[in-house]
């Protein structure tokens, strides 16, 4: 069985700083117990502040609503500083979750990191 909710592992967060951007890679599930760590990591980046945060969800096979809330909160705060959050497309389950919650309307989603970094800096318009 591939990594899935039935064999959860633990969340790993890796942050890579590049000039005025950061790439945050989430590997594993974002369960309720992990949301505080995610929130602190992302909030610290928002406070820098940065122009762009790329959240690599390609290895994130599960996220709860609290985890989504941490991302939404960061998105709002970063926007106040004229920055933006972009997502690298997650596995199908989380992609579907973003559709069910309609949060796919808030975030630009990219197939890979190169595309996410290369896109123009204008935040997603409503």
């Amino acid at each position, binding site marked *: *069985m*591939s990594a*899935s*909710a*039935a*064999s*959860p592992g633990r969340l790993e967060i890796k942050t890579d700083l590049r000039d005025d951007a950061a790439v945050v890679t989430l590997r594993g599930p974002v*369960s*309720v*117990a992990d949301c505080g760590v995610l929130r602190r990591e992302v909030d610290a980046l928002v406070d820098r502040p940065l122009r762009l945060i790329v959240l690599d969800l390609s290895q994130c096979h*599960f996220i*709860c*609503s*609290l985890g*989504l*809330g*941490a991302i*939404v*909160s960061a*998105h*709002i705060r970063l926007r106040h500083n004229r920055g933006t959050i972009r997502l690298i497309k997650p596995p199908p*389950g989380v992609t579907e*979750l973003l559709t*069910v*919650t*309609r*949060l796919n*309307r*808030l975030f630009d989603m990219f197939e890979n990191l190169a595309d996410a970094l290369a896109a123009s800096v204008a935040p997603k318009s409503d």
Partner: protein
Amino acid sequence: MSLTEPKSGSLERVTIPSDLSLLSEVIQGILRPAAAMGYSEDAIFGLNLALEEALANAVKHGNKKDPTKRVHICHCVSPQQAYIAVRDEGEGFDPRAVPDPTQEENLEKPCGRGIMLIRAYMDEVDFNESGNEVRMLLKVNKP
């Protein structure tokens, strides 16, 4: 409540204090047998999500993280369906009063998606009159 405990199958009951760090063990105790029974990855995902949301709500909103209050979980997993009931010791609430988080004006709110997700991923969801207990049913092997 229209959703009732299954009359057949092995019903298991667990009680935990209001501690978010304990949820994972409870959830895995339900997901492991479901996976062993051949539940699909989609079903496991939905079950996992509904459990996370219901239990987190019970601890945070129902019991206000009061360490003296407990969360009561009742579950029965069979090859055909998964039944879960989560009850907190709080005062309850009106689930109908929760705003729709998918509405445009609510998309940027950091919270309020839990109940919507439970309803989206489970086949049947029911609350008791006071709102401090939720019962959920996921049917697998649907026609």
